[in-house]
């Protein structure tokens, strides 16, 4: 059963989701001692890995939503490598890895096979990093979308090719340093005006459900998985997963950095049905992009040794991108009068 979370509770100040405060039936799958542990402990991800966190949350929620009838297809990448150094495996679910570029098509094949066998009760998830999604796997993904195959495709976006040593992908943000967009020359880091906005490309296919989420908001992430699994056809979930290694952020800051991505407006959290945005999670406490950038050494070239902003022009351009998102998705709605006096903060409203 899909568990909808109409209201999200936050402990003001700590930003921690107050699982203790919600009704038992509305607690997260992660809070359940009997959760599936689809991706179980003992794997070899780095400390603070956002992708491991995201995959565990998504798959346990999907297992809960499908009553354990789930098959996962995985593209090549960190998630595949750190979970299955054979004969060890961290997967407690049926799991298939074929290649880097073909996870959407392999998942289509699994779904077609199950349909032909009359076993459509078993649901299919495909998962990949941003490289496997927006770059090398995009042709197959677009085909899967266009055919409206019964697959939920989850992109764990850490904004570069981390498995091969932090090279630029089509999802790498402007100005970010990677191994192939070094922080040298007059325009250090990744160029502006490039990259693919996959959630919007997915929406352009008119598929039943598209959503974005971060690993900072578990209730929201799980609710979106439940909603996705309640629908048939092609669905797309784009989860922002910070990578301490590639982003140069502290492993203990993974959730904090993910939350700032949303709170700055750089990563809009929204959902869409049949190509139309039906809800966006408002920014709760708007932060300037500088707060987000400073926590990550991939943007260190924007700041001087003393910590002063060395490239105010670049920071301003990035702020402009965040402002565009805020305007596009309406991320900062007007605050109710009776809620005034909290410095512009307001509780998360209902999602959709």
């Amino acid at each position, binding site marked *: 059963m899909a568990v909808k979370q109409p209201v999200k509770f936050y402990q003001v100040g700590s930003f921690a989701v107050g699982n203790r405060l919600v009704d038992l039936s509305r607690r997260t799958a992660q809070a359940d001692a009997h959760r599936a542990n689809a991706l179980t402990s003992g794997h070899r991800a780095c400390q603070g890995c956002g992708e491991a966190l995201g995959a565990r949350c998504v798959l346990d929620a999907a297992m809960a939503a499908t009553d*354990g*009838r*789930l*098959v996962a*297809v*995985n593209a090549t990448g960190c998630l*595949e*490598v750190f979970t*299955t*150094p*054979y*004969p060890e*495996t961290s*997967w*407690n*679910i*049926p*799991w*298939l*890895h*074929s*290649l880097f*570029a*073909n996870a*959407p*098509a*392999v*998942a*289509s*094949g*699994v*779904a*077609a*096979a*199950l*349909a*032909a*066998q*009359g076993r459509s009760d*078993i649901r299919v998830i495909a998962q990949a990093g941003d490289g496997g999604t927006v770059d090398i796997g995009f*042709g*197959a993904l*677009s*085909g899967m979308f*266009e*055919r409206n*195959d019964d697959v939920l495709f989850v992109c764990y976006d850490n904004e570069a090719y981390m498995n091969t040593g932090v090279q630029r992908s089509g999802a790498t943000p402007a100005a970010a340093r990677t191994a192939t967009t070094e922080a040298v020359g007059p325009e250090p880091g990744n160029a502006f005006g490039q990259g693919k906005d996959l959630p919007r490309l997915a929406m352009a296919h008119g598929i039943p459900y598209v959503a974005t989420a971060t690993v900072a908001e578990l209730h929201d992430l799980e609710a979106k998985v439940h909603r996705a699994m309640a629908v048939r056809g092609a669905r797309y979930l784009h989860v922002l997963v910070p990578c301490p290694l590639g982003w140069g952020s502290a492993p203990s800051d993974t959730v904090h950095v993910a939350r700032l991505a949303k709170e700055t407006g750089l990563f809009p959290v929204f959902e869409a049905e049949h190509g139309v945005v039906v809800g966006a999670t408002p920014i709760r406490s708007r932060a300037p992009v500088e707060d987000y950038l400073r926590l990550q050494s991939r943007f260190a070239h924007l700041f001087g040794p003393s910590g002063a902003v060395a490239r105010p022009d670049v920071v301003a351009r990035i702020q402009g991108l965040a402002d565009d998102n805020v305007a596009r998705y309406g991320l900062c709605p007007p605050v109710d009068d009776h809620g005034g006096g909290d410095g512009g903060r307001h509780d998360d409203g209902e999602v959709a």
Partner: protein
Amino acid sequence: MLTQIEGSRAVAQAVAACRPQVVCAYPITPQTHIVEALGAMVKAGQLERCAFVNVESEFSAMSVAIGASAAGSRAYTATASQGLLFMIEAVYNAGGLGLPIVMTLANRAIGAPINIWNDHSDAMAVRDSGWIQLFAETNQEAADLHVQAFRLAEEVSLPVMVCMDGFLLTHATERVDVPEPGQVDAFLPPFEPRQVLDPAEPVSIGAMVGPDAFTEVRYLAHARQLGALERIEEVAAAFTGVFGRRSGGLVSPYRAEDADVVLVAMGSIIGTAKDAVDELRRGGLRAGIVGITSFRPFPLDAVHDAIGEARRVVVVEKAFSAGFGGVLSTDVGLAIDDAKRRVATVVAGLGGRPVTERAIASVVEDAAAGRLERLRFLDLDRAAVERELSRMGRARRSGPSAENLVRDLAAARRAGAVVGRG
């Protein structure tokens, strides 16, 4: 049922009789008629409990087949040429995973220059992918080999590629006894995979394997191929038991027992070669043929025995390795393992160039007389090649040269026409 039918349609009906559960299709000439026919059967409800997936590329066609097979369904697709090369990463993956996918390869040349006609370059390009590769001589054999392919694939846990010559077979209408579903049911048991993606029994498939075990995993793939070497003859015999005709097997010798000169070949060219051999025998030249049906696994012993004591061995092949020579002939050389008998390679029929009975006969005559060089390109227009070589020699620059050649040949044809009119 005996019927006049196009090769592609015969194959489609044979595949349908095998009750595939997932068929994926991406158009490429000359295999399109096969998947078109299968698609129509699924849409019309004649092929039940089968998903027909129109994918966006050959790479996805093979990937869908991989997912379907891993999920426990009988999966089929067809491709050719550039399409095979576009899916090659997934082809190797299916081989490595040991998934019993069956694919028709409507053999076609590989560009550049782009060419839609028949040769065997595409099949040779995936020689080492771990797939079983069977070559059909006729449309009857093409249809029959598909039925055998599913049984073989599922018994030895390897994908099987049935190679049939593009156009020469796919588009040829001839008499075929198309395998009937009832007969196929008696021959081909339902697919029962040893490992399947099932929530009731979760497995991880496609894990990373490091240096500690990779050699052993690859060896096991080789062992499965060697096992297939035994099974191919058994499956062919079982097929004869049900269908009452011989198709498939490892090799198909023709008048080779006492032959002085043996031609070795694969595919539809064997039909033309048979006519040439009959004609030569009438003239007193003891010629014979060893047709190779199973290219991978390669039947070293069967080829060795079939060639026997023949004095000359000539491999006529529709592909070659640039900078080296024959591909099939290298394997045949290993099979005869004889320092005194050097295998001659005749590269023929590239990009759809017709191979005539007369041309084959002259090759055999030259071989018998000791006039056949180690590597011959049959019917090569040497003058055209020399002109371009001399141009290339004058100015060392890189870049494509096919257009020069075509222009020369067109000019020569125009000149010929003018002379002819005069």
